[in-house]
């Protein structure tokens, strides 16, 4: 490859980052030019220095850890309830009759509005926050499990039955794996949601955690602290989403979609 071609290739590789770079530069210059007071917009360098200090101080990981602990506990409890229930609803008429109207009516309701009820029921501690996460993550997962179960190819079930599978074999060996891509999609929606709800619950109920840290910084009029927390939350969220995509590929090696994305 000649020099110009090489340069072009490098250029093409960096194009996706160009506008992000411009955005960050404009942020830095705009803040430094003193158009707005630093309280409204601290310079990017100030914010990054703050993030660096947070990481070095070690406190960040304790706070993030607390938020993640509540988010993940809620997510796992939610998944353990929602996924088997969704499969049962998809598979058995009685379950569908009972739960379908309940879920379809309560799903579009803005569920964050129910958090104050949990504050009355469970107080302001972890139980309340985890319960909030469970409520919110339940819906995308149960809906995914119902959809996945209902869309299992009928001929797969017929084949399994004619090969001597019992109802139990069907649920565990056919329906669960066949519905898995959709169930994982539901989980991919639920996990970031769990993180968000965990943060919002800290906003509303107080207590430590990354959301608590953010709110504390705002109350102290420490805007570099506010922006640093937001950057930290965004990074944590991005890492979470990327690891979910990785896990999806690992879990669904058999699925044609995997071949497409790795090829």
């Amino acid at each position, binding site marked *: 490859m000649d020099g110009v071609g090489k340069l072009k290739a490098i250029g093409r590789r960096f194009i996706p980052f160009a506008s992000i770079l411009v955005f960050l530069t404009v942020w830095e210059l705009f803040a430094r030019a003193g158009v707005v007071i630093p309280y409204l917009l601290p310079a990017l360098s100030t914010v990054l220095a703050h993030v660096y200090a947070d990481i070095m101080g070690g406190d960040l990981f304790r706070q993030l850890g607390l938020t993640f602990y509540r988010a993940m506990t809620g997510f796992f409890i939610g998944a353990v309830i929602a996924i088997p229930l969704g499969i049962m609803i998809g598979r058995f008429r009685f379950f569908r009759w009972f739960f379908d109207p309940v879920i379809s009516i309560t799903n579009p309701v803005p569920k964050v509005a129910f958090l104050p009820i949990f504050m009355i029921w469970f107080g302001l501690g972890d139980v309340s926050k985890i319960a909030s996460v469970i409520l919110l993550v339940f819906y995308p997962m149960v809906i995914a499990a119902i959809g996945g179960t209902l869309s299992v190819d009928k001929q797969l079930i017929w084949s399994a*039955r*004619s*090969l001597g*599978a019992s109802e139990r*074999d069907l649920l565990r*060996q056919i329906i669960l*794996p066949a519905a898995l891509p959709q169930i994982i999609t539901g989980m991919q929606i639920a996990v970031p949601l769990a993180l968000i709800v965990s943060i919002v619950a800290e906003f509303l109920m107080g207590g430590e955690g990354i959301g608590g840290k953010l709110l504390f910084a705002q109350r102290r009029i420490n805007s570099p602290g506010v922006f640093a927390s937001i950057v930290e939350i965004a990074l944590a969220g991005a890492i979470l989403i990327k690891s979910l995509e990785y896990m999806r590929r690992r879990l669904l090696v*058999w*699925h*044609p979609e995997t071949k497409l994305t790795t090829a």
Partner: protein
Amino acid sequence: MAEQTNITVENLSHTYMPPKGKPVLALDGITLSVKDKEFIALLGPSGCGKSTLLYLMGGFLDIQDGQIRVNETPVTEPSRDRGIVFQHFALFPWKTVIQNIRFGLDKMNLAKSERDERARYYIDLVQLHGFEDSFPSQLSGGMKQRAAIARTLAMDPAILLMDEPFGALDAQTRMFMQAELLAILEKTPKTVVFVTHDVHEAVLLADRVAVMSARPGKINEIADIELGGGPKDVKSPEFAEMVDHLWDGVRKEALAAGQGR
């Protein structure tokens, strides 16, 4: 297998309810008997209910009106002695070829060594040696169908129900598969019900061909394919004559359906 296997269909009608609109009569008073070790093809234009008839024989759909008996026992649900092969294979995509074949075997009361041996035998029979650990998505259409056939044959069912099994394959692969199926049946004779809309295929494979009418499906004619014994000669005038004759019947039905009868 010493025991005789026959299927009796008596006065079978079937109506299905589309999500929207009026009920559709798919089968209307079908009566048919399939003899032991006989290969019967159900031939008809698309939408004539031939697959529905097969699914009813399999016990996958509930029988509404009439009766199907296998050796005088009414069919009510799927069973191991009626193996099925679908047009789109219905392999379990999250299982490898060998795991697919082992699926039914592992639910049988057999020693592990025997299950291993049977799985290996059928892998060899359908010539999938070397692809045991591939996922279905990594196989070609013909290989997928061979895997599906091996999975069904491994159960050693007395009856083989085949739902346009070669319909999704290209012409060349289809020819190979037809020859292979005949060779396999030579080794392990079975009672076969084979749904197809390909007249040539029906004449080539079957002992008898039941020609079905357009919806609502009835049996118009049952043709004995007796072309002088031995392997069929596709180039013989008798073969061509039989194809022409059946083709004429199917074409009339397809036209009738097209005119919205």
